[in-house]
């Protein structure tokens, strides 16, 4: 039973990541996703510290605040002719992440995060952290969190499909129509922040990037339509969770690590069969 919970939660993490990851890939903003996944740490630790481990709103709020600091300071630094965007990203997110790492060690006794947890996550503990409602055991907390987020994402992306497509494909044209492209960008950053925070405990700050990129990048290899990219990347996300789990089980190694590694294998596999699929 525990194994099934781990696969299901891994699948939810990968699904949620791939849904927002597709948009990051198409907007060429994957590095912002990477930066966000690290930069939210100080906000999360402060959230844990002030509002407690179980108060998700506090943690999300802190993370969103840290994410906002990241995005705004990148935009501010980018204006300088001396600094390009990638340098600005690299500079700021590492500073924010390091503040987070220091905070984790300062609050180590009060907060249920430790440094290893932050980097790699620990999906193997998923079945232990359960959610009780009126004393009834409802199952792992991560499962309900991931499922709730998935429902929200599907709903949000369903209604914002046109907006994201327009502002990603041709931002100048969108702006010429009076569409607020910055607002859409912040909107996506909020979604990515929510996904990163919820996925953090399970797969950590480093591996979450694999889940953001690999399903969508693999889907883009063999599909030319937005809707089928969503479908394909979702299928790939599930394959990564299942394949990664059994890889870890077989080799007795880290589960989240194996899932991220398996995402690379999947990409190579799709790359190799791509010509046949297209033909």
């Amino acid at each position: 039973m525990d194994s099934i919970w781990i696969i299901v939660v891994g699948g939810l993490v990968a699904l949620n990541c791939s849904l927002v990851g597709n948009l990051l890939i198409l907007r060429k903003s994957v590095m912002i996703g990477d930066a966000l996944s690290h930069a939210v740490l100080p906000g999360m630790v402060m959230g844990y510290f002030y509002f407690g481990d179980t108060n998700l709103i506090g943690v999300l709020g802190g993370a969103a605040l840290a994410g906002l600091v990241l995005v705004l300071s990148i935009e501010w630094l980018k204006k300088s002719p001396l600094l390009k965007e990638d340098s600005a990203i690299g500079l700021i997110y590492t500073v924010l992440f390091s503040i987070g790492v220091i905070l984790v060690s300062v609050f180590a006794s009060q907060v249920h995060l430790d440094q290893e947890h932050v980097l790699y996550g620990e999906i193997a503990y998923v079945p232990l952290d359960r959610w009780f409602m009126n004393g009834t055991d409802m199952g792992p907390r991560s499962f309900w969190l991931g499922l709730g987020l998935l429902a929200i994402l599907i709903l949000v992306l369903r209604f914002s499909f046109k907006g994201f497509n327009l502002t990603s494909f041709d931002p100048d044209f969108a702006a010429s129509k009076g569409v607020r492209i910055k607002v859409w960008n912040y909107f996506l950053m909020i979604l990515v922040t929510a996904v990163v925070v919820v996925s953090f405990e399970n797969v950590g700050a480093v591996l979450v990037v694999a889940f953001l990129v690999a399903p969508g990048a693999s889907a883009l290899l063999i599909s030319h339509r937005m809707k089928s990219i969503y479908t394909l990347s979702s299928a790939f996300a599930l394959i990564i969770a299942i394949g990664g789990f059994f890889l870890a089980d077989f080799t007795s190694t880290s589960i989240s690590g194996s899932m991220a590694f398996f995402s690379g294998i999947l990409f190579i596999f799709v790359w190799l069969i791509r010509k046949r699929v297209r033909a």
Partner: protein
Amino acid sequence: MNSALDIENLSVSYGKKIALENISLSIPAGQITGIIGPNGSGKSTLIKSAMNLIPANSGNVRMLGSELDKVRKRVSYVPQRESVDWDYPVSVFDVILMGRYRPGRLFLPLSAEDRKIAEESLERVQLTEYRNTQIGQLSGGQQQRVFIGRALAQRAELYLMDEPFAGVDAATEKAILDLMFDMKSQGQSIVLIHHDLVSVRDNFDHLVILKNKLIASGPTSEVFTTKNLIASYGGSMRIMQELDV
């Protein structure tokens, strides 16, 4: 005469580099206007800052007699073809449909009327057979027609086009020109950035010549002169003799 575009004292700079210096001009409605000038003379900057896509240091722009925000629905902007990623996973029809998107209604589905207009625009740019093709599979000329089809779907009155003839073959150029004459006959105004001096006189009613400053703006017959072209392009323009202006 009504004007399509009025610009007063427009100045734009990128850092310390001045792209446009104190431009004032008026472009008549219902005509085809060409904007010419060498590379880096501020042609794209003029259109983009008029559309408020890049900030101006100073200046005032009016389109169709009003501020841009009041007439956005009546103005269509066609970006340079190279400005987007043609590998983006959308079909020809998807892109043309974007002409029907409206800022306040992005979360709502498009109407049957919107789809009908997009289908008609697809037909007008002769891409019906490529309706479901991914845009990266098209030739340069076809891609340019996708952009023009998207603009047609906006049903605007003023069209600002950034190099609609760049990288297109002769047949497509002819097709696009015919379309523009057709649009003009329906009372629409077209302003486009152009590179090929040879075809200027036959096709443009009005001409704007730029070299970061305004060299000339007026009826083509009056301003398309050797003096103005040398002022813009410099003495190196051998083509001047061939053009016999």
